[in-house]
């Protein structure tokens, strides 16, 4: 089953459709509101775009600086080439510190490497602490949205889940459901030996990590347990605090239509002697997982300018209909259609760049000014065996105006409504549905014939 089948199933699910629509429209309008209140949002976007590209261009030096600063502050830095290496590192760290229980803040990269599974295998009981992620974990599902992981579920479904897994009485009230999650999670925070988080932005000059959130669960995860493990992909680093602040200026605005998220944490290494809180040990894992290879490719490098705000999902007509899970991987929407194939995150990944109308809504809102439509076309160019071999005849036919015109006119004459073609096996499954939604206009004399008659 590929993206087409999964998305076709999603459009038949009227509950899911209602939820996607509401979420997308709300995110979109909230974002528009806060952007309209900015003095010069275009200048802000240009700034973020410039920072991200400058950081990518200086990546090796920035990573080296980051490493030295983190070590100087008493942290440990580990580089992981692959998902397997990163998971093994976290397992080793857990073992070394005798960790039995862990809490995790929302982190796309930990989903990308399937860290929870690896921790379970190492007998570490790990629990997601972001409400949406917690719901997804209980349901045994991947997040379907970068910012709102459980956006695909209704409150009724969540209530059902809490009753089943937590033995709570059925409660359809959202604050009530949140209170249930809070009660169960609070205990887990206090029991945990290790807190695991992602990184929104790493600041090389000081070895500081910025974490952006609304629930306080990330800050709790890095302050209560004795060990903090932060996992970042290597493109997340910028040079200065000032660069990070420029990104922060647009990140919550783009992600959730907020001027600022409820919590922004700037963390620099483990607790020092003169400090009263923070973890005893801090480990940074810098993950590549195929990225450095892509970054060496000038036509694709730009994908990593992304700051993971999810604005592109919210405005994407395809995401709004298909939902996140149809993409098959951790990342969905325009970004998912880029990352999934190039990082090899799903066997059907190379289909995703074609599942795009090239409408450009994503590029219009991207705070880092990625040109997703162009990048997706570049991936279409590289996709193997996707396009119909009969397409190879098109340039030849188009170079023979008479043949071109006559064959299209013949088609228009024999099958003006495409109803015959729509019954041909091999075309039926697609053209049949195409013509079920539309009726072709009737045949008319081609423009060129009419023009010749008029003008001689």
């Amino acid at each position, binding site marked *: 089953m590929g*993206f*087409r089948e999964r*998305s*076709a199933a999603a*459009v038949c699910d009227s509950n899911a459709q209602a939820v996607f629509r509401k979420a997308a429209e709300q995110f979109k309008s909230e974002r528009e509101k806060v952007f309209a209140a900015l003095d010069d949002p275009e200048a802000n976007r240009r700034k973020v775009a410039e920072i991200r590209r400058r950081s990518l261009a200086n990546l090796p030096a920035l990573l080296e600086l980051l490493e030295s600063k983190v070590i100087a502050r008493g942290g440990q830095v580990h580089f992981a080439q692959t998902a397997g290496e990163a998971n093994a590192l976290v397992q080793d760290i857990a073992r070394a510190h005798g960790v039995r229980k862990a809490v995790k803040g929302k982190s796309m990269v930990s989903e990308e490497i399937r860290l929870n599974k690896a921790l379970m295998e190492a007998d570490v009981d790990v629990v997601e602490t972001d409400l949406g992620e917690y719901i997804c974990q209980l349901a045994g599902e991947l997040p379907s949205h970068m910012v709102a992981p459980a956006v695909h579920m209704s409150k009724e479904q969540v209530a059902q889940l809490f009753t089943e897994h937590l033995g709570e009485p059925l409660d359809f009230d959202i604050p009530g459901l949140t209170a249930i999650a809070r009660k169960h999670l609070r205990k887990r925070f206090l029991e945990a030996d290790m807190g695991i988080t992602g990184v929104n932005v790493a600041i090389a000059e000081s070895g500081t990590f910025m974490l952006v959130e609304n629930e306080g669960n990330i800050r709790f995860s890095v302050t209560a347990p004795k060990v903090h493990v932060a996992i970042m992909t290597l493109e997340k680093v910028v040079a200065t605090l000032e660069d990070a602040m420029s990104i922060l200026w647009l990140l919550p605005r783009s992600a959730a239509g907020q001027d600022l998220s409820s919590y922004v944490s700037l963390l620099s290494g483990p607790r020092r002697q003169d400090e009263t809180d923070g973890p005893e040990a801090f480990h940074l894992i810098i993950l590549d997982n195929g990225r450095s290879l892509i970054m060496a490719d000038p036509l694709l490098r730009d994908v990593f300018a992304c700051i993971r705000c999810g604005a592109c999902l919210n405005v994407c*007509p*395809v995401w709004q*209909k*298909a939902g996140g899970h149809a993409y098959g991987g951790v990342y969905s929407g325009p970004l998912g259609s880029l990352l999934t194939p190039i990082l090899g995150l799903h066997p059907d990944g190379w289909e995703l760049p*074609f*599942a*795009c*109308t*090239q*409408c*450009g*809504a994503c*590029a*219009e809102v991207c705070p880092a000014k990625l040109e997703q439509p162009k990048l997706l*076309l*570049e*991936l*279409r*160019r*590289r*996709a193997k065996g*996707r*396009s119909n071999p009969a*397409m*190879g005849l*098109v*340039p030849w*036919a*188009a*170079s023979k*105006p008479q043949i*071109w*015109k006559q064959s*299209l*006119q013949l088609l*228009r004459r024999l099958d003006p409504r495409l109803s015959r073609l729509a019954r041909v096996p091999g075309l039926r499954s*697609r*053209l049949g*549905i*195409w013509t*079920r*939604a*539309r*009726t*072709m*206009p009737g045949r*008319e*004399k*081609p*423009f*060129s014939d*009419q*023009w010749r008659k*008029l*003008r001689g």
Partner: protein
Amino acid sequence: MPTVSLFIPCLVEHVYPQVGLSAARVLERAGIQVEVPPGQTCCGQPPYKQGRINDAASMARRFLDVFQGAEAVVGPTASCVAMIRQNYPDLLAEDKVYGPLAEDLAQKTFELSEYLVNRLGLKDTGASLPGKAVYHESCQMGRVLGLKEEPRLLLDSVRSLEILPFARQDRCCGMGGQFSYDYPELSAELLEDKMADIQAASPDYVITAEVSCMLNLDGYVRKHGLPLRVLHLAQVLDSAEGKNGIS
């Protein structure tokens, strides 16, 4: 008298010829001499959008031959104009012969409303069309070519025509060229949404400047026998009391 070489996209040639005729008439009425270079076929957009770069490049070279020496090229659809203007120069960047020709043609190629408003300084074509309409901007017009104001300026001056607002105006209609064939379920759902938003405004006409959106929306209207007509901007600008471009 300025001369325009009219670029006739495939869908205009074979499905909506009246769009081409209207575009020619509107230009002529604006004092432009219109010629239609013979031997036009496809600009190469479909293979280009499928990632078939070499096929698209060979079609681009042919297009440059057909339009060689044109003073200005005007096409009545956004996506094909965008192909020539934005994609030809990239496609042929390495080609010493055709590369410079592509750069040159990109500078001289315009979408119809863009040519009328920005090149000729025209805001009123003298058209008249009684009724209410919505304008479907189309992603290729608004986002790709950045032509948001030009068609609206022209529509605002059409006599007796009221342009109605409608919900989610900037959202894709679900066509996306081959997307509508590859993912017909998603495409049909997006089309349903678009038509529901449009119908909620109860217009007499749906106007667009992109023929592939036109095929999508018009196909839906025909399928469901809806009491509204889908028109190309050129047809609206060609409408006058008594005679119109929508015959």
